[in-house]
């Protein structure tokens, strides 16, 4: 066991900020106790009683901020202190006197808004389960943004929800659209008659954006959290979500979105579709075998875009042949464009680097690329043999999911904060073997509000930096979102095009283009 700490002079934060920072640190594995307090004599006395008073604190004065951590070893202490420091910096708004009362507890919130029927919970995982259960017992639907909730807790919550007709979206559910309201990371889309159940956040976003951009709309988009379709959870909320859409009078068509569910879950979903669901169902199970759901009567899609287009065809009352023809023609266009882009590369340039903020989009890109250029390396690759030894160092064709833990501990998600990705863009551009950089840009509430402003100069800088070598890098971007999003899809598209990027109408199209260029350059495996 180790005890370490730091002293910061003259820093002021409100009590709850300090308590919550201490709690967030305490939630780290290996941390036994944590305190973030002012250096008053009494606080030092309590630190001493708690066994976490350090020598350096003994002469601290009232205006000094003390951060003390007790953990299993020194390395854990250091990581915990680092996290506390970063959290405090991110809460630099400090003490605020508010003009209006803001509820401080679930009970207070329920009193304040007695007509509310849903609660969104974003707490450290250790505490989120309890609050979620409290909310369910008050008859509220729950969206659980928190991750690090145990499997046992998730099962308990979802069983309770199922028995009482309540939705439990999550844990680790960051996206939903309920009665037209985008929740957490979600896009502003048209309202319409297509309902979505998704065990994938950016999968939900891509499908709902495609649908909206086709001129039709979403009735409800229910997120379940990615773990829901695994064996342990058994698809509880995925199934309840499908049933809810079947009963929802606003929903006429259902789209289900997921990475491949566990086979037992897939069987249950298929059985449900076959026996109880009358409305047309489109299924995109990224990388999974569509036969099971097809035999149950659902229409399988090969990509997220296709799922959106199929559902849109239903809603418009059009045949699927129309969009299939459009996709075929587009395919020719992609091949021609890839041909053009391959011509302006040097002999060493032959690989693609995908830098993704959305996990599902990264997975889809890898699945598509695999069919054209073979397996790609990554930090979360499809084939474990292609796992990067060092997630920070790409090789050959590499697709990186920047939303994975190694990139997000102690920093905001890359969908919000582009700093890390901007840095990686410049690094990858400097690699003489790189021909294409593939980027996703996810719009909507919760995401970076100025993606065009941030990416435009970086793309320009990256392109310029390689000019001296006679190299030209192709930037291919996909923008998940709509013109109704606060960032405005059209505006962002224009800004990226001004920087010289090629914008594709979907992640599937972008992945294909990037892969065709690499194939032309001899970079396929």
């Amino acid at each position, binding site marked *: 066991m180790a005890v370490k700490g730091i002293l910061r002079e003259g820093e002021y934060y*409100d009590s709850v900020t300090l308590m919550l920072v201490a709690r967030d640190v305490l939630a780290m594995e290996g941390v036994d106790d944590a305190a973030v307090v002012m250096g008053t004599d009494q606080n030092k006395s309590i630190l001493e009683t708690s066994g976490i008073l350090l020598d350096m604190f003994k002469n601290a004065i009232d205006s000094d901020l003390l951060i003390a951590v007790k953990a299993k070893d020194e390395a854990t202490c250091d990581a915990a202190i680092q996290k506390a420091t970063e959290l405090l910096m991110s809460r630099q708004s400090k003490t*605020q006197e508010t003009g209006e009362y803001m509820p401080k507890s679930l009970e207070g919130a329920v009193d304040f808004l007695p007509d509310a029927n849903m609660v969104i919970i974003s707490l450290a995982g250790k505490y989120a389960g309890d609050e979620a259960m409290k909310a369910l017992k008050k008859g509220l639907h729950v969206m659980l943004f928190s991750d690090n909730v145990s499997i046992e807790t998730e099962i308990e919550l979802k069983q309770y929800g199922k028995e009482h007709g309540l939705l439990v979206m999550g844990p680790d559910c960051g996206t939903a659209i309920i009665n037209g309201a985008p929740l957490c990371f979600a896009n502003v889309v048209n309202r319409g008659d297509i309902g979505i159940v998704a065990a994938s956040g950016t999968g939900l976003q891509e499908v709902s954006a495609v649908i909206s951009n086709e001129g039709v709309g979403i009735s409800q988009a229910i997120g379940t959290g990615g773990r829901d379709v695994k064996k342990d959870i058994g698809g509880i909320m995925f199934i309840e979500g499908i049933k809810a859409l079947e009963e929802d009078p606003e929903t006429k068509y259902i789209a289900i979105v997921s990475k491949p569910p566990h086979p037992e879950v897939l069987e249950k979903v298929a059985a449900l579709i076959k026996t109880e669901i009358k409305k047309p169902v489109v299924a995109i199970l990224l990388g999974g075998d569509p036969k099971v759901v097809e035999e149950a009567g659902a229409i399988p899609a090969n990509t997220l875009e296709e799922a959106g287009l199929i559902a849109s065809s239903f809603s418009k009352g059009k045949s699927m042949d129309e969009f299939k023809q459009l996709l075929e023609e587009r395919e020719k266009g992609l091949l021609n464009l890839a041909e053009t882009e391959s011509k302006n590369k040097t002999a060493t340039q032959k690989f693609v680097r995908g830098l993704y903020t959305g996990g599902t989009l990264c997975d889809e890109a890898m699945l598509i690329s695999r069919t054209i250029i073979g397996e790609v390396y990554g930090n979360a690759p499809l084939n474990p043999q292609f796992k990067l030894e060092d997630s920070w160092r790409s090789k050959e064709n590499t697709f990186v999911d920047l939303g994975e833990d190694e990139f997000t501990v102690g920093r905001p998600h890359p969908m919000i904060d582009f700093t890390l990705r901007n840095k990686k863009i410049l690094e990858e551009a400097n690699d003489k073997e790189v021909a294409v950089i593939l980027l996703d840009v996810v719009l909507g509430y919760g995401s970076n509000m100025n993606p065009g402003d941030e990416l435009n100069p970086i793309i320009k800088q990256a392109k310029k930096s390689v000019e001296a070598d006679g190299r030209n890098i192709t930037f291919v971007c996909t923008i998940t979102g709509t013109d109704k999003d606060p960032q405005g899809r059209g505006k962002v598209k224009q800004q990226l095009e001004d920087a010289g990027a090629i914008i594709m109408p979907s992640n599937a199209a972008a992945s294909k283009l990037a892969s065709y260029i690499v194939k032309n350059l001899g970079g396929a495996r």
Partner: protein
Amino acid sequence: MVISTQVQIVSIGNSVPLCDTIFTVHSTFERVANLLYSGGIVSVVTEDIGGGPNNIVINGFNFLNLKEAQIINDELILNDTKIFLSQASKYDSMINLDDSKKTTFLSGLQIFERVLVKHAHPLSSVFLLDDRRKSFFITPFEKNLRNQLDTGVTEILNGKLSSVSKLKGIGFGFTPQGDDLISGILLAIYVYQLLTNYSTAHIREEIYRLARSKNVISDTFLYFSAKGEFFERFKNLIHAFFQDKESIINATMQLLAIGETSGADIGTGFILASKEAFKKSTNGGVLIWQ
């Protein structure tokens, strides 16, 4: 130098110095800037924060940019913005109560306590009013802190004034919870004096002396509490006791909106001390601080 028409002065507390004074900026927040001078602290605040004995209430100024402050020739100068002090109304921090109001006060106090227990932040010291809230304190440090607050308050309310030293400076935050509890206790003892005609000046002085803090913000607040000078939200709360239930609820919510737990902690100290003082005097027992 800019004479601003956009920045408007609303009120000046009765303890704000009006003579020429040069301040040092101690700390700035979105709605408050604390200014240090030889006599203590003056706080420049927005209207939604409200008046106080040492508050200057102004609208239209960005406190986060404040670098310099002074009063010269009846003008408050913040950076290069001049504001005429003579335009401001005076905030009176005293309250008027007498012994005819005791029963109504105690009824209002009950409503105040109920609303506070229901709506205060889980990590405030309101666990002292409702044991069920103790479970919100989870980490070993938090539990030790909670126990210390509990012990300190219990001992003070049993007449052991020296236990003020157990409370002072304890807790998280810019103004520690212990200091806020003591402020609430001091205000309660003052109100007790108004409602019973029993002089408590010596008790308040003693408590303040024991509670004096190196945290100049806390110390100033304790000082005014000891003198029976109320900031506007608390004054409104006391007045609400003599209006109706709705007014008490609204005023309590306003109090709870102060900081994250400060308002709740002050309220807790006030309720505990008021209940104890009136309980003992009603039963004919020795007044706790005699």
